């Protein structure tokens, strides 16, 4: 969290520099020419409090808290429309993912943001065995807000679950183990190592 308490920027483009160093593809932020095509191309554009165009402007203006605590980046559906349309060829989708991840890592992302929760559950699910267990993931999803809410969610969605089971596309036996990689230990070590390397490079105190 020391990151969070960093001294107020001496130079006002310091947050831009922070983004360039710490955020995936962050070095592209300065190349935005403020045309707004990204904002107009996003399928969930209306749901963004700050469109990518605005986020880029905010980064340049040094609005660190506002950017990192924004829930806008979490609205990204990864449709890549902004990427292919950006006339400046900014990898906008990646920058949004990078910003979201950076905010999450610093603990500044909005608490309980649903996509943030889904992302966390999904990763933990896949990291456990090397493969996603759809049933466990779904159950974790429904129960993320506690047991009572989980039962409610489950009941609300039971039609869908039963439909999928009938179609043999949701296997209740998955609860008892399910698909997994043989070398899941190797995968665990590999992911841990990758994380360690990244933290070393980024200068995080992990």
């Amino acid at each position: 969290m020391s990151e969070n308490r960093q001294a107020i920027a001496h130079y006002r483009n310091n947050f831009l520099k922070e983004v360039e160093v710490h955020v995936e593809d962050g070095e592209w932020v300065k190349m935005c020419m403020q045309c707004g095509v990204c904002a107009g191309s996003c399928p969930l554009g209306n749901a963004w409090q700050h469109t990518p165009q605005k986020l880029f402007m905010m980064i340049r203006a040094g609005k660190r808290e506002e950017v990192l605590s924004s829930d806008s980046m979490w609205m990204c559906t990864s449709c890549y429309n902004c990427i292919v349309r950006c006339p400046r060829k900014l990898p906008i989708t990646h920058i949004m993912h990078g910003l979201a991840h950076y905010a999450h890592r610093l603990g500044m992302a909005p608490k309980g943001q649903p996509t943030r929760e889904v992302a966390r559950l999904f990763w933990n699910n896949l990291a456990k065995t090397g493969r996603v267990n759809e049933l466990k993931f779904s159950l974790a999803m429904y129960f993320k807000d506690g047991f009572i809410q989980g039962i409610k969610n489950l009941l609300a969605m039971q039609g869908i679950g039963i439909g999928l089971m009938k179609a043999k596309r949701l296997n209740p036996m998955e609860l008892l183990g399910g698909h997994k990689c043989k070398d899941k230990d190797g995968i665990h070590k590999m992911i841990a190592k990758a994380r360690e390397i990244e933290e070393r490079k980024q200068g995080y105190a992990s």
Partner: protein
Amino acid sequence: MAEMKTAAYICSGCGLGDKLDIAQLGKIAQNEGKIALVRDHAFLCNSEGVQMIRDDIEKEGVTHVCIAACSRRAKTEAFHFPTVAMTRANLREGVIWVVAEGSEHDEVRQEMADDYVRMGCAELKKVKLPQGNPNTTLQKRILVVGGGMSGLTAAFEAAEAGYEVVIVEKQARLGGWANKLWKRVPFKAPYAEPQDTGVAVLAAKVSTHPRIKVHLNSTVAETAGAPGRFVVKVAQESGAVTEEAIGAIVQATGFTTYDIAKLPELGGGQANVVDQAGLEALAQAANGGALKRADGKEIKSVVFLQCAGQRDETGQHLAYCSGHCCATSIKQAMYFKDANPDIDTVVLYTDLRVPGMGEDFYRSAQEKGVIFTKGKASGVEAAVNGCKVSFKDLILDEDTSLDADLVVLATGQVPNAGVNLDAWDKAVSEADGGSEAAKQNKSEMQKISILNLSYRQGPDMPQFKYGFADSHFICFPYETRRTGIYAAGPVRRPMDMLQATEDATGAALKAIQAVENASLGRAAHPRSGDLSYPIVRLEGCTQCKRCTVECPFGAIDEDEKRFPVFNEQRCRRCGTCMGACPVRVISFENYSVDTVGNQIKAVEIPDEFSEKPRVLILACENDAYPALDMAGLSRTVYSAFVRIIPVRCLGSVNTIWITDALNSGYDGVMMMGCKKGDDYQCHFVKGSELAGYRMGKIGDTLTGMGLEPERVSSYEVAITDNERVAKFINEYVAQLVEMGPSPMKGFG
């Protein structure tokens, strides 16, 4: 001159023979047209057909040729007989390609062709082979006024093309604004870094060029004459005057920066606020090192305010965009980033405009870390260590501010175009009325004049919007209304250095074209190569001055008895004087009140019971006539009741043609010319406007004749209007049918 012998050639190729009775056309030429020699040919423009005409010219002594085939704009190379006078009857684009298919239209189609043959023969009787201006001169030296980047380029290019050049520069050294720049924006790929201006090299090349003569510390005291025979007095600061014989002139007098003192709200006048020129001075002083303010402090943060006093909607400052300033600020921001990447450089813009390849340059600045913020500045206040810039962030929609050691205002270019002729005219007429103040004002104006032309129209070229030197902005940007005098560079419109050098090269080429045409007695643009020129029958002149006043090119002076004095080399052969002359004493050898009048009269007017109205179309040869040809080319059908006569410009239309036509029983007249107004497309600038003005007054004449004012109608037609022009015709003919036949029929 040899005795007139006429010949008519009727082509039956391109389907003419299938659609028309060629024998009948021949009879009409012979019997009604009174043509001495009439021949037809199945393929007139092939070598055999052309040889037949050549043989007749050489062996039969034919002096006048009427070709009844395709449009006068087609097959001009095949039908090129420079030793004879020629007319064309347009049977292909004008008849068979535009009259509806089918035998039910055979009669009207043939009548139309008959009339065009009659018209071609009638015109032939009145045209002479133009002999060319006898007052040809051989002076081909080119004067360049202004020794900045544009002037140096124009001079160097003209000299390299083999022409003698004289440069007149007000300052003590060549180079102009470019001397004051630390670097310029890049002209070549990869468009990434500021470049050396190159002005020193160019100035050295010009100074030592064997064909270039340089007058420093000098101005133009007087310019008299015309293309090919200008006499220019060059006055030195010392008072000495040199006379130079000149063929054509390039005016490259550049710009002045908008006065920063007029922008106090943006900090103009504050110690730590400079304009772009001021920043260049700081950069020159730094000589590649850290840039320092006037007070010696090293600059660690800088904000560039774009559009300072430009694109102003309040009417207080410049209304226009100067085009170069965004790229200039990008370049200047790089001065800082290249010296020290940690310097905060912010460009505050509302729209970043980087024409040409400037987008790459912009991107390069972003890569260097220059911050571009879309926002509008509302004020600059002095702060403890520099300035505080208040602005509205236009993306985040909030009012905010920035602190900076230095603020740079991107102000605009104000042209050095000399005297405003409207103000001049006013001063002249008031001074003539005895006003002492006006006399004083006039002599003040003379001091700022650039060319000091001894033309009756005033001492400089006319000014365009916002005081820029004249330009046929939309179609022929290098052209001006002073033949042989071409404006180049930022005096003509705001521009950057690369555009200025291209502009200067273009202007040098125009100047070369002008001296070459003048030396052969030929017209300059747009009738380049035309040998005809206006001939005035002075004994009939009433000294009304309309020709002198209305000539768009200042070609006509007055002598002491107020008779017109034509300067043929200044003339563009548009015929506006001919259209203006109330007593019809001005004509060209191959274009006159009679050549057109005779065609109008040659048309056979059916009686009022025939249900065949006749509509005369006077179509400008520059845009409307080509559009009509294109309508033919695309087989766009229009009414067979129209008879079209091409004119050099609607400005050349004499109202007698209209009244003659209506008197002889035409049901209506359509005038088709180029767009007029501020964004005119008239090739002769004022022609269509004058025609509009004259036609505005014809209503009274029509009422006097007992005719509806709708019997004369005007249309603006662009060269691309091939479909629209057919629509105009069909709608107008329908309107006339509705209106009923002209009551004048049968009296003609």
